[in-house]
């Protein structure tokens, strides 16, 4: 598939720190591309270079095979993680203002319908809830009917209902054949929305592929979960790979039957046993480590 946006050997230095270290990336047309990584991995710097907000120290970024130019600005929509809107201005006035920056704009009615803005369109932006604010910011990002949309942690701080509502909006955008670049800390969100995922750490991409491909490439086991209280005092047999997560014990196994037999032989109750497949969160932690990032 033709790459809509691609980056080659992207490097960014900040006063002796290498935030992005020779990154290569290719986002095909119509794809929802997820960029994941722990805090300080270089995600935001990478995305801001791809958005044209920051200039790379070295490397090349091409949109439709050409360097980023005025056409790129007309063709993209951006929803930053934290964008202040002007105080005392309504949603409608914001949409009109941003709409005036572009040659081509979507009809306001279409945008109001697509992002469900009707109930608060004429309200002062200071009085919007978190979910309403994010929907308005998404509408502003879509005002120019962009080909490529950047969504930087769009659901951070939203409640589960608002988050799922937002996912539905993103699905509708995808259905219109738009290309998206999404950064998120929610692995379920990435799994739900992204066709392709890249995991970054220390300024480099350390894994890339579809969510299924990535999981298949890194895991061939499942996870048995049992409450810690169901285990007797003597330790578990060393044949099992075990991890203690607060009040839960996780057992990683390729052979569920054998693992269960082993647990039964140690008189462990299976009444509260849960079996789950490996998730993107497991992959993320395995690749980037479990230590706290600052």
């Amino acid at each position, binding site marked *: 598939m033709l790459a809509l946006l691609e980056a080659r050997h992207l490097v960014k230095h900040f006063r002796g720190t290498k935030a992005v270290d020779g990154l290569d990336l290719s986002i095909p047309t119509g794809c929802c591309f997820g960029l994941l990584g722990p805090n300080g991995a270089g995600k935001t710097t990478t995305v801001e270079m791809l958005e044209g*907000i920051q200039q790379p120290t070295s490397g090349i970024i091409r949109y439709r095979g050409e360097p980023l130019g005025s056409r790129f*600005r007309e063709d993209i929509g951006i929803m*930053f993680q*934290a964008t202040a809107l*002007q105080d005392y201005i309504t949603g409608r006035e914001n949409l009109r203002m941003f709409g005036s*920056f572009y040659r081509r704009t979507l009809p306001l009615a279409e945008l109001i319908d697509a992002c469900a803005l009707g109930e608060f369109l004429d309200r002062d932006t200071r009085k919007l809830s978190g979910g309403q604010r994010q929907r308005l910011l998404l509408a502003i990002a879509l005002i120019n009917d962009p080909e490529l949309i950047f969504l930087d942690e769009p659901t951070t701080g939203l409640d589960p209902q608002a988050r799922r509502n937002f996912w539905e909006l993103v699905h509708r955008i995808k259905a219109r054949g738009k290309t998206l670049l999404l950064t998120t800390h929610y692995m379920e969100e990435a799994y739900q929305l992204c066709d392709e995922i890249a995991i970054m750490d220390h300024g480099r991409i350390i894994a890339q592929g579809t969510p299924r491909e990535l999981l298949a490439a890194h895991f061939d086991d499942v996870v048995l979960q049992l409450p810690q209280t169901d285990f007797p005092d003597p330790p578990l047999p060393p044949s099992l790979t075990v991890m203690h997560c607060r009040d839960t014990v996780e057992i990683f196994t390729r052979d569920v039957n054998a693992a269960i037999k082993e647990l039964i032989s140690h008189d462990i109750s299976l009444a509260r046993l849960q079996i789950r497949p490996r998730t993107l969160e497991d992959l993320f932690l395995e690749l980037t480590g479990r230590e706290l990032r600052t």
Partner: protein
Amino acid sequence: MNFVRFWAVFACRNREFLRDRSSLTWNLLFPISLIAGFAFAFSGPGLDLYKVGVLGDTSGWHGSNFFNTRYVRFIPVTDLATALTKIERHQLDMLFDPTGRRYWINDESPKGYVLERMLRGADAGSTFGKQTVSGRIIRYVDWVMPGVLAMNMMFSCLFGVGYVIVRYRKNGMLKRLKATPLRPLEFLSAQIASRLLLILVSTALVFVGTDRVIGFPMFGSYLDLFVVFAIGAISLISFGLLVAARTTSEELAAGLLNVLSWPMTFLSGVWFSLEGVHPFLQKAAQLAPLTHIIDAARSIMLDGAGLMDVSGHLLALAAMSVGAMAIGVWLFRWE
């Protein structure tokens, strides 16, 4: 009130302030510079409360008790007409002619009245003839009013553009705009135009409102006054823009804007005339746009001057506007 929470916030705010070196430096340097400036401006044997212009040769009169009065600055003047204009405008409190044995005061000036009493008390035996200031008598409020309007305009222009742009930069608004096809020049000119419109409308409203209550003399053209205020506002906005071009800290911006505005307030003759102030400061005042706005506005309102008469001030304002705006646009960064 929970004092534990209060203290935590208080301590954090103090740390933030102390660690913001640039703002801290300004917060220290600004009052020091201000005090030093005042000390320099009013240096000399003491604080002069009264200004008396002395016409012609004063050598024979140093023995007079009046000349020994403390807190009066005696300023030699040579041209009678110019000196009388200064009396009208409260730039001089009295004009004294020892040779002609006469003096002039503005009957609307409290300081003139006090000086007259001092003169009679100091030289009771002498006879000095009181002269009437010919032409119109300008009240202090008439003289100070253009200055107050211009000063209000200055604060609105500097803070309304400079501080607001820095706030937009800090809260991410400028970053969002950078991601659109909007160009810096478009954004900046919109800011300038918006502030210009607001300030001209609000100044006009203040002018009309106060004129109805107090009644100001207007010997020139309202259109000429409008032109002076418009060019003056553009020059002040340009300085605001210059401050906001790259500043990212709201506190630093406030410090820089204070550095511009407060010395201008004192040096531009808003409240008192710079007559008798150190010549260096009188020259320095010419670098401040506020000086030119106030001088031109006073000339139009009180002397009936036309645009040609104040063209020097207008040219200075235009040059400052072009210079500050060009540098501001050149330095401007969205982030």
